[in-house]
């Protein structure tokens, strides 16, 4: 073995180790290098074709073998729509009441408007500890790093972490390294949401840093608190479980992601969003966060 391990092999070994070190340093310095753009740019058409073919086959398969399941799902969805229409009617009444109260108390109103770009998913990461999607749009379509990705229904998918001319990588909410500042919409409790992979829940999200006195109920919706990256009020998920941290000073909640990440085909990237403050003219509060705190109802119900 020692004799077989000749000079040439030793050189290859040293080069491999040096390249590994150099690439590690390079990836720390920049997340968009020329070889990245070249290789991924060249692979994007192949990935797009392969994904398109797979989706077509999947659609035919579903049509042929899952027709009854789809029919049953359709019935359930119809019932859900009817329920949601009823909720919308109630929400409209609440909204009118809210506007009246805002005007009465001279509170500012905020309107957020988004500019979105649609994109199709062409690749999924296969490493166990990462959850990254590759989409078929990039800088040519106005997409840039740190832009928020959502579904057609405004459910958070993730964040753009790397971008090339014709592709972009989106780190999903299931990835443990992505943290989103969020609020339980019903109670107004704030916390940080990240993927639950590291705590043994790879399909769930974990909302940390909740007050130990917080009352958390199942099925409560969690939305984004609003930041420079994520607009306010995007649905992150709904509570499925809660408990105390090991330290006992804070609570955590497990959430089911609102977006079905594994079943996604198309997503939308929010390329621009603006927050306009209304002209109801008031002295307090002045910022969107203050307004949110003022309007967020305090949940006093028992679990």
């Amino acid at each position, binding site marked *: 073995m020692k004799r077989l391990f000749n000079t040439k*092999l030793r050189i290859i070994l040293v080069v491999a180790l040096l390249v590994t070190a150099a690439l590690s340093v390079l990836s720390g310095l920049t997340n968009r290098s020329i070889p990245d753009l070249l290789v991924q740019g060249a692979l994007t058409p192949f990935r797009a074709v392969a994904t398109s073919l797979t989706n077509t086959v999947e659609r035919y398969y579903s049509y042929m073998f899952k027709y009854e399941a789809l029919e049953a799902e359709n019935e359930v969805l119809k019932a859900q729509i009817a329920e949601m229409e009823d909720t919308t009617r109630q929400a409209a009444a609440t909204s009118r009441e809210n506007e009246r109260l805002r005007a009465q108390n001279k509170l500012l109103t905020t309107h957020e408007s988004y500019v979105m770009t649609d994109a199709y998913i062409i690749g999924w990461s*296969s490493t166990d*500890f990462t959850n990254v999607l590759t989409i078929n749009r990039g800088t040519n379509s106005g997409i840039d790093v740190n832009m928020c990705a959502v579904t057609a229904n405004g459910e958070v998918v993730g964040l753009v972490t790397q971008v090339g001319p014709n592709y972009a990588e989106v780190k999903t909410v299931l990835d443990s390294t992505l943290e989103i500042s969020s609020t339980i919409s019903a109670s107004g409790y704030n916390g940080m949401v990240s993927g639950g992979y590291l705590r043994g829940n790879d399909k769930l999200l974990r909302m940390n840093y909740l007050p130990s006195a917080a009352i958390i109920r199942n099925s409560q919706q969690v939305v984004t608190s609003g930041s420079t990256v994520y607009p306010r009020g995007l649905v992150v998920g709904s509570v499925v479980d809660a408990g105390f941290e090991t330290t006992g000073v804070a609570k955590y909640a497990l959430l089911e992601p609102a977006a079905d990440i594994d079943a996604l085909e198309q997503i939308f990237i929010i390329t621009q969003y603006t927050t306009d403050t209304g002209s109801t003219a008031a002295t307090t509060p002045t910022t969107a966060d203050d307004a949110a705190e003022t309007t967020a109802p305090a949940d006093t119900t028992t679990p």
Partner: protein
Amino acid sequence: MAEEQKRKRPPSGSKAKARPQRRRKRRRGSVLARWLVDTVDKIQASRPEFQPDKQQSSLSRLLHFTKQQRMSLLRWVLLVLTCVLCLVAQDCIMSRIKLFGATTDLGVAAILLVGMLEGTETGSIFALLASIVYYFSGSAPGAYCVALITVPTMLCGLFRQKYWRRSTGSMLLCSAIAIAVYELGLFAIAVFMGLTHWARFPYFALTALYSIVLMIPLYQLIYRIGRIGGHIWNE
């Protein structure tokens, strides 16, 4: 008979007459040869004695390949294409198919198989280059995959070369060991960097297992491509 021989044999007097004619012919030939030699000498004298090889060759010469070279080129093109297709198939199809929470690593499996098939030296160089491309493709978990692919390819190739004869079984076994080492290394680095936890080990082991199973049909394809242009295996 004796009379016939006498007729054929020229008389001694005629022999003496024929010689000057031959000499005249020889002289003419030698003049021509001398003129040719002189001309060549003059041409050679006009040029320097030492002529270096041409630095630039014509396009037709550059593009000219022998049959063996053409076959070798075709083989490498097909092997690279197979690796690229495996990588794309992994990203677009296989990563969505999860059995017991684990998926395959088809791209790495293809690189390891080609590396193993091409022998230790060529295979290691191929594994090094392919792993760099794999890293830049965005599918790799990190830069450490360059070392994690190249080193097992080299070590398993050396081990096979030293102790086993080249056969489907030995190649597959060494490739299986290489991918198991890769997944184990990946898991160890991920644990060290805090990206995963110990409880996820079975998933990495399952990924290695699925990849090994997929290696069997993949090896048949890569072996057939590797046979293009005849066996060039030298150990």
